[in-house]
């Protein structure tokens, strides 16, 4: 019984594999990017109220009006752009679906799409589903800067879109204004779309987050993707969105309508409340995460890792080679079994796995106690060779 050819790229995700191994060995999980603490009470209360108020039936396919408005308002606050909630905002089941809907709605089989490696693992798989022709540009340590000359060579009039992620998972890199200006001018010159995954935009520590859509000439060709989960520590609620000009939103909505049809209603009501949170919420969020980051980064350095600077997200990548393991997967397995800590091997985030073999990713979206315990285990058990 034949499964479709597009599935050659699809296997169980690395996260599932590592999580299973972690449970088996009682390891502290700094691998998968979800918090072990819960979201804010006021958002949970809003969802509960919505359920009690009977908001349990199909929402309007592209989002309840209140949430679309809240998303537009937040976007204006963040980057100054005024968008129409009715025609330029689409609510989806998480940012993962926003990405899938964007790609399936706007990419034809054979279209050329540029990706930056390392990349969140659903990008490559979803582009394969759409039959895209993937061109990959690698961001390299220590600062994972965009290699502009490579980008200039790669992009041409044949290019349909660039898929980018800032702040960047797994490296924590944030695209600078200079880099974004370069990308913008190349996209305008070659008439290329940009799909920008900005789920970690509120976890920007070392510099301000810049939405590429806000650069001159860019809004008309950009789909900006985001979600509730990371900002509000409710990763399981699956509320995401895509902001794009009407002609691009049209494609996103068409795909969305057959992927999931509508997004869960109570979660949307709660998300609208969440997005109206005062600035103090975001200040405190950054402060909490900054503290967690410091615990992890200092601990990793003391344990002997070479730690690359991370400007945003709740991830940090490190070079594990001081410990003498052959590659990232071997290191991660060793780390789980012998040290009792989980990290994610980054080779799966590259088209060419070799490029990631020295690098693994840790997350600090865990409570401080957990982070300290993990750091202690690593300091005690890791020996440089």
């Amino acid at each position, binding site marked *: *019984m034949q499964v479709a050819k*597009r*599935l050659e790229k699809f296997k169980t995700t690395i996260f599932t594999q590592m999580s299973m191994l972690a449970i088996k060995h009682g390891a502290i999980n700094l691998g*998968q990017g979800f918090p072990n603490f819960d979201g804010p009470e006021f958002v949970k209360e809003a969802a509960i109220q919505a359920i009690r108020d009977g908001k349990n039936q199909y929402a309007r396919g592209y989002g309840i009006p209140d949430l679309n408005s809240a998303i537009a308002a937040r976007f204006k606050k963040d980057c100054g752009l005024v968008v129409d909630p009715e025609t330029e905002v689409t609510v989806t*089941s998480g940012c993962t679906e926003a990405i899938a809907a964007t790609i399936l709605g706007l990419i034809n089989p054979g279209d050329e799409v540029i990706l930056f490696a390392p990349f969140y693992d659903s990008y490559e798989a979803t582009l394969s589903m759409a039959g895209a022709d993937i061109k990959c540009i690698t961001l390299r340590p220590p600062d994972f800067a965009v290699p502009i000359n490579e980008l200039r060579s790669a992009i041409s009039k044949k290019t349909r879109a660039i898929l980018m992620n800032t702040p960047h998972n797994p490296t924590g890199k944030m695209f600078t204004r200079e880099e974004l200006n370069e990308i913008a001018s190349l996209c305008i010159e070659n008439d290329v779309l940009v799909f920008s995954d900005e789920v970690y935009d509120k976890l920007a520590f070392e510099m301000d987050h810049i939405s590429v859509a806000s650069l001159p000439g860019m809004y008309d060709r950009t789909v900006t993707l985001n979600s509730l989960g990371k900002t509000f*520590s409710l990763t399981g*609620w699956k509320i995401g969105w895509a902001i794009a000009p009407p002609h691009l939103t049209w494609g996103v909505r068409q795909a969305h309508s057959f992927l999931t*049809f509508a997004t869960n209603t109570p979660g949307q009501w709660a998300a609208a409340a969440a997005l109206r949170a005062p600035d103090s919420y975001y200040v405190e969020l950054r402060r909490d995460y900054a503290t967690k980051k410091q615990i992890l980064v200092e601990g990793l350095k003391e344990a002997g890792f070479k730690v690359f600077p991370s400007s945003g997200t709740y991830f940090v990548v490190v070079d594990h080679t001081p410990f003498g393991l052959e590659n990232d997967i071997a290191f991660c397995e060793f780390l789980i079994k012998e040290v009792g800590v989980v990290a994610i091997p980054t080779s799966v985030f590259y088209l060419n796995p070799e490029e990631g073999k020295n690098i693994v990713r840790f997350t600090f979206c865990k409570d401080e106690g957990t982070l300290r315990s993990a750091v202690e285990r690593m300091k005690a058990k890791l020996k440089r060779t």
Partner: protein
Amino acid sequence: MKDKLSAVAKTFSPSPIQQLSHLAQRRNAINLAEGFPDFPAPSLLKSAAVSAINSDFNQYRHVQGICDRLAKIVKDTHGLEVDPLTDITICCGQTEAFAAAIFSIIDPGDEVILFDPSYETYNACISIAGGVAVYVALNPPHWTLDNEKFLKSFTSRTKAVVLNSPHNPTGKVFSKDELEVIATACCTNDCLAITDEVYEHITYDNTKHISLASLQGMQERTIITSSLSKTFSVTGWRIGWAIAPTAIASAIKNIHVRITDSAPAPFQEAALTALESQPQFFESLRQVDYELRRDFLARILAEVGLCIQFKAQGSFFIFAEIPEECLLSDVDCVRKLIEEAGVVGVPGCGFFHSNKLVEVGADNFYQKRYIRFAFCKSDDTLAAAAQNLQEFVNKAGAFDRSESVKC
């Protein structure tokens, strides 16, 4: 920049149905169009969801218990043995389960047989996956399966048959005999089946819903999709599933993870409570409420002069026919009902399709003569609809009066 749309997305156009729905909103018309309840979801489920949120079940989650429970349910109900660890994927509604199923098995050029009339979303999904929809018309007025038409629609490129039973929009429940014809054809042609069984617990007059997968030779080639939505009146929670043979289920799961990653966590917890609820709960849904509403709605539609030659055996839709005496199309008839009666239905044309391959010279006039009405509505809503329609008949006359000037 319009050329930046994908080729398939460009073929989708705004529907007359959308325009009618705006009109209905402006007129504040009684909504018998949308297929979801306007009465509350069961308290049992709401409490379970609230409890889940309060218990911090709010991060990425896969609730294996749902799979375990579903495996037991399909065993008890349909006699199917499935492995809950490998054969079941929890998705954001049946919509996503179907999309993942299509992407898991359809290669560009593969043909998929659909029964017409059919729910529009199936076609959109098949197109984006590069598949080709092949429609086999069910014969009005009783929407019977035409064996000859069906068997003729198979080619060497046929990959799958899609079966929605109980059926939206007609309310048909495919009979055992019809299922056997479908099963035999699938086995003979060595193709797959994808079922949409969302109305599986909503049947009437002791009609039994039979799962296609339970027929001889079918389990190994069938993907079952269904959801919590219609059974438990929580269409807004987005909890559905796909059940398939292990190799295909694995593919579906891997695709699902890239489409949405997981279904909403607190509602997965509530789903477990729902699925574990007593069998009596299912019974109460089936017998008391919906059957009475069906009969009530059928009566009031008949009084307006619409023809109901086929009594819905399942789902919560009545697919009513415009009588001969009335020359209006379904769209115009719905518009008239919105404007003059303040009641909304869905013009049937959105569910009908034509094939390039078959139906040459066939009479497709009937495709513009049906209106779908939903009766998953509260007593108050149905009573208000009845009143409005009565007033409409008094003023404008019923549709089956032969004074054509009325239409």
